[in-house]
């Protein structure tokens, strides 16, 4: 379901966070972690994505945005962030760290180590 899964080392731990139906279509839920909130999104095509719940602009909670296609619009100032990469849609610049997701049937598993390449992971 998510191509970035490849990069992940085997010794890291997948956490089961819930099932697909726990998240509304075109909606998001938050996973609270000691390192900050992670937003888990489900779009209309039932694809699941996870991003750090912090907009690269001014930290707005992306989990509260409107989701369309593979994009979420930040609730604070309407930046658009790609759900699969966390990268802001041009002309805006910046990115929110994305997290690997693994599916087992209906179950959603999340890895707490973000994918590489985005400075907004802290």
């Amino acid at each position, binding site marked *: 379901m998510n191509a970035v899964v490849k990069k992940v080392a085997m010794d890291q731990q997948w*956490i089961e966070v819930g099932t697909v139906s726990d998240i*509304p279509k*075109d909606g998001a839920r938050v*996973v609270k972690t000691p390192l900050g909130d992670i937003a888990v999104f489900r779009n*209309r095509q039932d694809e699941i994505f996870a991003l750090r719940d912090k907009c690269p602009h001014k*930290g*707005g909670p992306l989990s509260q945005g*409107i989701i*369309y296609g593979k994009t979420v619009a930040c609730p604070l100032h309407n930046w658009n962030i790609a759900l699969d990469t966390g990268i802001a849609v041009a002309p805006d610049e910046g990115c929110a760290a994305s997290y690997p997701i693994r599916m087992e049937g209906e179950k959603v598993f999340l890895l707490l180590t973000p994918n590489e390449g985005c400075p907004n992971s802290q």
Partner: protein
Amino acid sequence: MKRMKLVMVGNGMAGVRTLEELLKIAPDLYEITVFGAEPYANYNRILLSPVLAGEQTIKDIMLNDVDWYEKNGITLHLNKKITRIDRKNRTVHAEDGTSAEYDRLILATGSNPFMLPVPGNDLQGVISFRDIHDVDVMVDAATNYKHAVIIGGGLLGLEAANGLKMRGMDVAVVHNSDNLMERQLDPVASKMLQKNLEDKGMNFLVGKQTEQLIGKDGRVKAVRFKDGQEVPADLVVMAVGIRPNTTLAESAGIHCNRGIVVNDTMQTYDPRIYAIGECVSHRGIAYGLVAPLFEMAKVCANHLAEYGIGRYTGSVTSTKLKVTGIELFSAGDYMGSEGTENLLLSDPKGGLYKKLVLKDNRLVGAVLYGESEDGNWYFKLMREGTDVSALRNRLLFGETHLGDAGHGGQSKAAAMKDCDQVCDCNGVSKGDIVKAIVTKGLFTLDDVKLHTKAAASCGSCTGLCEQILSHTLGGEYSAPEAKPMCKCTDATHDQVRAAIRDQKLTSIPDVMNTLGWKREDGCPSCRPALNYYLISTWPKEAKDDYQSRYINERAHANIQKDGSYSVVPRLWGGSVSVDQLRAIADVAEKFNVPEMKITGGQRIDLFGVKKEELPDVWGFLADRGLVSGHAYGKALRTVKTCVGSDWCRFGVQDSTQMGIDLEEMTWGSWTPHKYKMAVSGCPRNCAEATIKDFGVVGIDSGWELHVGGNGGVKVRATDLLCRVTTREEVLEYAGAFMQIYREEARYLERTAPWVERVGLPYIKTRVVDDAEGRAAAYQRFLESQEIYKFDPWAERAKGVDQHEFTPLKVVTG
């Protein structure tokens, strides 16, 4: 999938714009090949004038360089003129033998300058003003020669004259009628223009007919007129008009009649062949300005992309002259005709002239001279057919005189310095905007918003941004008459509403399928609008789609900048009891609410509540009889009141009770934008009812009803709707007005702009004159309220939408 082959002949402004639009919506449908007769990639022809005047360079005016074509996989043939179309084998052939096959062909061949058929018109030094080559010749002549004669005192001729004057030549403009730019200006404005240009050092020979160009050694030397007069000329620029370039189309047997004849989807008589730009004749009109061409481009791209509903139905055009220091604007029926009347402001000595032509209370034409920054605004009123009777006595003074207490566009773009701030919300200066326009080739307000963020927040600088856009680009880049709702569709707000109503569409996917949405999930701008249209049109049948609502409405609280929420309970008509105050104090204490304040809407706001706590906070309040204040919604907000006749020594009516009654009737209803009411007990109006969407003012004999007021960024005082006597009437008029607004305004259009757009007379007809219609609208309002009048907080406190407020999972250390 094998891509279809799309070939375009003509690499100019209209054609490339079509490709840009097409690539945006269907990037993979075609394999594209472009032929251009000029040796350059795509440039902004309009800006040849400032280039000639030495204000910009060729580099500045490139729109898409060769890299752009490459990046988009377009095969580009420069310097290759197509001379033959073989419709049977579907191929085009260039002069040098290059050929290409097509499944679809676009002809975008522009137009040819018309050369007067006088002896000597082929001499060296006789040229037109159309392309980079012409500008090179003129710049060259300016360094080596002295006398320039421009034939034609229209827009193009005057811009050429100005440019050559700036480059140091002696310039004479020959014009066959008595008035310059007679196709855009009335005689008064025309004379003012001539005087201004004479002051700049240009000579005019008006009412003159050119007979012959006299040469020496093959180069032009003088111009002779029919009356025998002769003037020296080392350079002659012919600017007497253009002719649609139909040679190629005609040779291929495509029907032409002063332009390549096209239908509303820009197809020629051969449906595989489209034509676009100055070369076409659409409903008998050939356009010579870019704004209409860009509208055509959009429609053509849509049709090529196989989206159905776009149609080009013609344009109203407007003109500006790009001569630095001269402010001139003209649009529509500027001369006036039968049944029109003129509003005039004429101060020739002070260099100011404004003429507005009205017909049936709508603006149909305008000429502005000396000050043109209101041009866009007048043009908008014209295009939208706004009823201007209410503005009539202030109309001539422009938009900024309409009681604009904010900072809505009152500075003049031209006079601003580059470092001057335009958008106070996002800190964008004039220089930033100009730079983005020039370097990124922006044409529309939407582009400017997207790239600079100016005008993207509160919107109060929209007018100013439009001015900067038109000053920077020179030409008229007005928005199309009917703007699509957003990039996902070509349908306008009004069309979408009509479809929802007439075809009884009751869900967002229904609307998207029926109207051919381009993006299956829509976007954050259309989805909330669609959801609103659905639930307001079909309150019983349509299901409210919370995922298409902005977070505030989804969570029933206002999101704050730190991600926490604020809670504003309803205080009916602004009146409070000890118990209510106690409940608010208790909830604040119990949940450690960091801050409270009295709002500008007579209620109490609790700040800094965490999302997870919201249902508990609400439950606590609900148990004590407090409900949602909808401070977060495009919905009824507050009904402000003053004390009124119960206590006040001046009060003539019980305004507090009236406020409570109105609020009890209307709370919970969703509206296109937020909706506020207020009731004052006497004309002293302490509740400020005259800047509310619906204002009620007590008078001795009953109540005065006011509509369309707005505080906020741009203050607008209400219009008086009528006077009534009883409480029941106030409620009925209030409900009917609100319902008609709910049913007819566009999403995010407050009552103030709505009333201005449709006109107060219209509102009066519906709400005051038509008693039956009023009663029916009131009834529809009450029916919708049967469904929507409930407390969303209490529901959520009891468990509705739990997922919204609880984390999916909490991971500990």
